[in-house]
């Protein structure tokens, strides 16, 4: 059972375009993370959002946590070829240990 659904699964856009990736769940999480993974490497944490409604910005990337802490979005402004990669959201539940559940991933290709 996949608790976190990401959309779209694949995205190919031209350099300079904007895009949004969505991460949805029916479950409530104590926090939500976004990772980026490049081919042949492990995922690397980009950001953690903790509070419902929270918005965090990382240069051209804007992350938002839904008010009910069940969903999140990642918006990239003026995409660059260096943004190419697999984007993964991950929901965290606490209690005993920090259980981290990953979404299905969004593969982004930015064409120069």
């Amino acid at each position, binding site marked *: 059972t996949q608790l976190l659904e990401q959309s779209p699964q694949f995205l190919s856009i031209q350099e300079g375009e904007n895009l949004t990736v969505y991460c949805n769940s029916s479950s409530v999480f104590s926090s939500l*993370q976004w990772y980026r993974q490049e081919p042949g490497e492990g995922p690397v944490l980009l950001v953690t959002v903790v509070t419902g409604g929270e918005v965090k910005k990382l240069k051209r990337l804007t992350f938002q946590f839904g008010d009910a802490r069940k969903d999140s979005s990642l918006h990239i402004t003026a995409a660059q070829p260096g943004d190419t990669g697999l984007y993964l959201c991950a929901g965290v539940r606490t209690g005993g240990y920090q259980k*981290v559940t990953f979404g299905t991933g969004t593969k982004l290709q930015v064409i120069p």
Partner: protein
Amino acid sequence: DAGITQSPRHKVTETGTPVTLRCHQTENHRYMYWYRQDPGHGLRLIHYSYGVKDTDKGEVSDGYSVSRSKTEDFLLTLESATSSQTSVYFCAISGRGGEGTGELFFGEGSRLTVL
């Protein structure tokens, strides 16, 4: 750099043979995890550890066992490898010094092919 290494990075084996993957960390993180990554499934948790000799199952634990005899090392064993276990395996760590927010640091992955 969270000081996490996996070995071997690549392995090809035959069905029915045992395989052990090793994860080594140098950062004193309390929690260690083994995930597998397959197209269309994202990252799925196999087993995790919350301390020395303390381990538990994840969502896809069948056919896998783990051991953690010291803080630094977390071993994943496939007792009798099957073709369905062909995958890329990632080790992750969190909770430096016993604390943590669930933020994971990943190794570079071990690509396993079972023929």
